[in-house]
C-alpha cells in the first residue's frame, strides 16, 4: 500500500474524531495579582469572574475562581478546564528552579564558555554535522564518568543536548540509555531527564541547551502541580479534560506538561492575545492588539486572523529558548506612567516653544484622582472627562497646578499629556511593524513581494484603552474595536485556545535519511529517487497527526504545513539528491467566541463609554487593567 492510500485512511480516522461532544469550557488564568475565570459554551461567554491570587496557593486560587464563575450554574455540569499559571514562569524568573546537571555535546564551533548561558555545561566529546552525520563518536567511558559526577548530588535533573541533535538525536539517546543503565546498577538516578531534540526540532544549540535546562529545572514543580490538579478535580468536580496553556497560545495535556513543562512559560500574555483574537469581531483582518495596563502596554500582531510568532522562541529572564511563543512587545507606557516635561533644546528657540511631554517608562503609583501623589495620563483623561474614575476635581486641580508651573492652562496641559500618550503609543506600534517588516527573509520572492502585514484594525484591551485606542486609531487612520470582557480576556483566551503540536521533518535523499526529532524518529528513505516534496509533506502531516494523538488532540482536521524548504543538491555539476525541511502543525487556532448576541454591532467603532455605577475599587481595577 502506497503512502497516498495510507493518508486517505488517516483522513477517515480524523473525521471520526470530529464527533466531539460540545461541553462547557472553563478558562482560568492564575496571574500574579488576580486569577481570572471565564466559562464559555457554544462559542459564547457565559460568565466571567476575577478573584485575588493567593500566592503560592495556585490550587486555592484556581478553585476560588472556579467557584465564583460556576456560582450560578449547576455545579455538576461537565466541563473541560483550560488552565494558565505563572508557575514555571515565576520559577524561572525568580531563579527558583531545581538544580540541573547539563551535558552538552558541542563539537567544533563557538566555545561554550562564550555563550554566557547562566548555567554550567559539562562538555562531552562527540559531534554531528549539519546534515546529521556523525563526525566524532561519543566516548561511553567519558559519558559514564560525567554522569557519575552528576549523580553525586542527590535529586538533580539531567539535560542532554547535542549540536545538530535535531538532525541526528542518536548521541542524546545514547547518553540517556547509559544514564538509565546506571540507575539499575549504581544509583537511583536523575529526577528528570530532558533531551534537547525532543523539545524542539528547530536549530540553535545554545537555545536548545537553555530550553532543556529550564525544562529539567521546572519539571518537579510542574509534576507536583499536575498531581494536585488531578487530585482536586477528579474528586467532586465533573472535569472531563484538563489542559494547560502554552506560550504559543495553544494548549497541552496535563500529562504532557510533566514531560515538557517549559512550554507552559509565558502562558498568561499568550492567553490575553488569544482572548483578544477570539473576542474581536473582524477576525480575518490584519490586526494590532494593544493591551494598555497601568505600567506597561503590550503590543501583539495578527495577520489574516493568525497570530505572529517569535522568530525562534520565547525569551524569559536571561534565557533565550526554543519554546514556541506568540510575538509581543512590551513598552513602559501605561495609565499610571510618570509624566515628564522635556526640556527644550537650545536650537529649538524660535520654534513653537510649548513644552513637550514624555511619559514613562516608570510608573509613579496610583493616579491623583485615586489618591496618588503625582499626575498620570489617567488623571489627564479624568480631568478632561474622558474617563469617569475617582475624584475628578482632585485630578483637575493637580493638572492645573502642574500646568501652571510650565505656563499652561489646565485644559491644554491635560490635552498635551493625552496627545503625548497617543504619540508614544503610535511610535511604538510603528516600531513593531518596522521590526516585523524588516525581519530577514531568505528568498528573492519574499524579499521582493513581502506579505502585507499592516494593520487595518486596532483591538484595544485594558482599562485606559477606552480613552486612548480611538485616538490611536485616528492617528493611524484605521478602525478600532474595544473588547468586552477585556478584564478577563486572558481567561476567555485560555478557554478558547486549542491544542497545538508541531513536528519538523528533515529528509536527505543523498544520505537516505529522514528524521523527526520531536518524535525520536530517525529512519531511512527506501526509494531515494522517488522521494519528492509531496511525499515529504505527506510524511510530515502524518507525523503531526501522530504527535497530535500523543497530545490527546481530537480535532486533527486542521493540520498545516507552516514552513517548507527544498533544495537540489549539486555536486560537481550533477544533481545528487534533494534536501527537504517541512514543519507541520496542528493549527493553534482559537475557538471563536462572542460576548453576547448583538454585541458586535454595538461595539465596533462605537464611542467609548465607561460603565458606571460600580464601586470605586472596581473602577480603579478596571481603569488600570
Amino acid at each position, binding site marked *: 500500500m502506497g503512502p497516498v492510500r495510507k493518508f486517505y485512511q488517516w483522513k477517515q480516522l480524523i473525521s471520526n474524531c470530529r464527533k466531539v461532544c460540545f461541553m462547557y469550557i472553563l478558562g482560568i488564568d492564575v496571574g500574579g495579582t488576580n486569577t481570572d475565570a471565564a466559562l464559555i459554551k457554544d462559542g459564547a461567554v457565559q460568565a466571567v469572574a476575577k478573584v485575588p491570587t493567593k500566592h503560592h496557593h495556585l490550587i486555592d486560587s484556581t478553585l476560588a475562581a472556579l467557584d465564583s464563575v460556576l456560582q450560578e450554574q449547576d455545579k455538576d455540569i461537565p466541563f473541560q478546564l483550560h488552565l494558565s499559571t505563572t508557575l514555571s514562569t515565576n520559577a524561572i524568573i525568580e531563579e527558583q528552579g531545581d538544580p540541573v546537571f547539563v551535558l552538552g555535546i558541542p563539537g567544533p564551533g563557538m566555545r561554550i564558555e*562564550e555563550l554566557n548561558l547562566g548555567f554550567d555545561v559539562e562538555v562531552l566529546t562527540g559531534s554531528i554535522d*549539519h546534515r546529521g552525520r556523525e563526525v566524532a563518536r561519543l566516548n561511553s567511558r567519558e559519558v559514564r564518568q560525567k554522569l557519575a559526577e552528576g549523580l553525586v548530588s542527590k535529586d538533580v535533573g539531567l539535560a542532554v543536548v547535542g549540536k545538530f541533535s535535531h538532525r541526528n538525536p542518536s548521541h542524546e539517546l545514547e547518553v540517556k540509555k547509559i544514564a538509565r543503565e546506571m540507575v539499575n546498577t549504581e544509583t537511583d538516578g536523575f529526577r528528570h531527564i530532558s533531551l534537547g531534540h525532543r523539545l524542539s526540532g528547530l536549530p540553535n544549540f545554545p*537555545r536548545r541547551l537553555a530550553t532543556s535546562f529550564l525544562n529539567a529545572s521546572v519539571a518537579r514543580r510542574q509534576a507536583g502541580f499536575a498531581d494536585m490538579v488531578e487530585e482536586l478535580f477528579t474528586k467532586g468536580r465533573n472535569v472531563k479534560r484538563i489542559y494547560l496553556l502554552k506560550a504559543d497560545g495553544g494548549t497541552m495535556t496535563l500529562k504532557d506538561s510533566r514531560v515538557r513543562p517549559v512550554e507552559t512559560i509565558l502562558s498568561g500574555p499568550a492567553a490575553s492575545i488569544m482572548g483578544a483574537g477570539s473576542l474581536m469581531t473582524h477576525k480575518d483582518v490584519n490586526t494590532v492588539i494593544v493591551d494598555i495596563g497601568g505600567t506597561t502596554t503590550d503590543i501583539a500582531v495578527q495577520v489574516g486572523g493568525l497570530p505572529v510568532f517569535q522568530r525562534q522562541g520565547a525569551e524569559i529572564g536571561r534565557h533565550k529558548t526554543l519554546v514556541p511563543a506568540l510575538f509581543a512587545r512590551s513598552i513602559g507606557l501605561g495609565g499610571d506612567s510618570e509624566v515628564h516635561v522635556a526640556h527644550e533644546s537650545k536650537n529649538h528657540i524660535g520654534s513653537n516653544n510649548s513644552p513637550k511631554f514624555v511619559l514613562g517608562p516608570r510608573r509613579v503609583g496610583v493616579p491623583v484622582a485615586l489618591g496618588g501623589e503625582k499626575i498620570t495620563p489617567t488623571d489627564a483623561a479624568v480631568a478632561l472627562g474622558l474617563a469617569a474614575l475617582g475624584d475628578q476635581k482632585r485630578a483637575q486641580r493637580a493638572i492645573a497646578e502642574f500646568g501652571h508651573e510650565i505656563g499652561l492652562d489646565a485644559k491644554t496641559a491635560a490635552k498635551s499629556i493625552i496627545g503625548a500618550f497617543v504619540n508614544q503609543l503610535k511610535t511604538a506600534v510603528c516600531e513593531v511593524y518596522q521590526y516585523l517588516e524588516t525581519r530577514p527573509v531568505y528568498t528573492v520572492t519574499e524579499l521582493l513581494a513581502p506579505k502585507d502585514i499592516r494593520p487595518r484594525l486596532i483591538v484595544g484591551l485594558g482599562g485606559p484603552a477606552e480613552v486612548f485606542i480611538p485616538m490611536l486609531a485616528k492617528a493611524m487612520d484605521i478602525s478600532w474595536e474595544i473588547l468586552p470582557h477585556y478584564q478577563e480576556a486572558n481567561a476567555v483566551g485560555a478557554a478558547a485556545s486549542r491544542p497545538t503540536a508541531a513536528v519538523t521533518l528533515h529528509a536527505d535523499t543523498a544520505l537516505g535519511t529522514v528524521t523527526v526529532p520531536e518524535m525520536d524518529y530517525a529512519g531511512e528513505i527506501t526509494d531515494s529517487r522517488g522521494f519528492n516534496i509531496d511525499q515529504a509533506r505527506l510524511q510530515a502531516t502524518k507525523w503531526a497527526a501522530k504527535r497530535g494523538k500523543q497530545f490527546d488532540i481530537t480535532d486533527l482536521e486542521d493540520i498545516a504545513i507552516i514552513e517548507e524548504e527544498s533544495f*537540489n543538491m*549539486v555536486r560537481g555539476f550533477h*544533481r545528487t539528491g534533494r*534536501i527537504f525541511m517541512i514543519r507541520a502543525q496542528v493549527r493553534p487556532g482559537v475557538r471563536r467566541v462572542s460576548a453576547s448576541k448583538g454585541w458586535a454591532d454595538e461595539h465596533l467603532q462605537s464611542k467609548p463609554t465607561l460603565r458606571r455605577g460600580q464601586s470605586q475599587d472596581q473602577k480603579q481595577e478596571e481603569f488600570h487593567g
Partner: protein
Amino acid sequence: MGSTNRKKVGLVFFPAFDWAISSDHPEREERLLYTRDQIVEEGLLDVPGIEEFRPTVADENQIDRVHVCVPSTSEVVTKSHMIAAGGTITAADLVFTGQVDRAFAVLRPPGHHANRIVHGSRGFCTINTEAIMVEHIRHTYGPHLRIAIVDTDAHHGDGTQDIFYNDPGVLHISIHQDGRTLYPGSGFTNERGGPKAYGHTINVPLPPGTGDEGLLYVLNELVLPILADYQPDIVINAAGQDNHYSDPLTNMNVTAQGYAQLTELLAPDLVVLEGGYSIEGALPYVNAALLLALAGLDYSQAVEPDFPGDKIRQRPQVTETVKTVVGELQNMWVSRRDVDLGRIFGEGHIFERQRSIYYDTDGIVEEQKEQIRLCSVCSGWRFIQSGASRGFGRTTIAAAVLIPRHVCSECENQAQDLYEAALKKRGFHYVYLQDAGNDIFLKAQRKSGTK
C-alpha cells in the same frame, strides 16, 4: 582575546534560496544552505553584538555609477543581482551610520569578476557588488574617502581591478592562486594600475598549495605594511572562500582558522563574501569563524570537522615562492613613485590599450579598445570601445565615455565632445556617458534607420 576587542557586527545575510544561475550550476540555491544551518545552530545571531539585517534592493542609479551595462542595466541585471548589490550597500550604510562597527555581507551571487563594461556574466559574476558598495560610499559619505579593498578570493579580482584601474582613491590588493593555474588567468605582479593610479593595484599571485602560513605571511609582510602607508579610511575584504583546502575548483590550502586569523589581523570594516564552492566542507565553518573573528570572539574552536591536519601543511618550495613574490611586491611598493610612467604609458597625450575578454558563464567574447587621456591635472577621461559577440550572433558595439571624479575642466570638455562625436559616429549601437563627479549616466541607442 579580551572583551575589549568586542565589536558590534552587522550580518547582512541573503542566501537567495530560490535562485540559481542554472539548475546544475555551482552558483545554486543550496550554496549557503549549510552556512545558514551552521550560523543558526551555533546561535551566532543571539550573540550580543551580532545582529542580522535584511538587504535592500539596489537601484539602477547605484549600479550605473559603476557599470556600463550593454545594452541596458535592466536587460543584463536580474533582481537577484540587485539584492546582492543592495546587501553590500546595506552593509556600508550600517557601518557609516554607526549602527555597527563592522558589517559582513554574506550574499550571492558574487561580483568580483564583473568589469566596468558588462555584456553578461563571467566567472559567475554579473555586477560588481564591492565596487557598487564603494561608489555608494563615496557618493553618500564623501568623494574623498580613501578606500582599500583586499580581495582574498582564490581567483584574481580582475573585475574590481578593471573598475578601479585608474582610480587613485582606491587601493586594490588581490591575493589569489597564480593566474597560470586558474581562471581568469590574470593578476600578475606587473599589473599595477593605470597612469594616474599606478601602484594602487597590487596583485599577489600565490602558488597552488599555499595554506594559512603563506596567506598570513602575505598579510603580515606585505598587506598590513602597505595599509599602514596608504592610511585608508575604510578597509574592505572581498572574502571569497574558495582558497579553502576543500574547494573543488581551486588548489589552495587555507583553513577556517587561517581565514579567521587573517580577519583578526586585517580588521576590515566591511567584508563581502565572494566565491567559495565547497559549500559543505568550507563555507559553514569559514563563515562562522569569520563572524566570530569580526565580533572579537574566541574562534579557536571553529574548525572543520574533517580537519586534515598535516596533510595540508604548506610545502617548503611553496613557502619559498610566496617569499619571493612578497619580496618583489615589497620593493615595488616602496619604489612605486620612482617608476618612469612615460616608459609604461608613453609620452603622448593618450594611452591606449586593447584587450579581449571572455565571459565564461555566458559564452561571450568581448573585444575592447580603451583610451585614457594622460592629464597632468586629473586622472583623465577614458574612452572605451567594446564589441561583444555570442557564438555566431551579431556583434554588439558600444562606446562609453567615462569622466572621473575630480575631473579638470579641460578633460570634462573633451569628454563631452567625445560623447557628442560618438553619438554621430556610425558603427556604435550604443553610446554611454558615465560622469562620476556629477553622478550622471547617459545612454543612447542608434536608431536602426540611421545606419
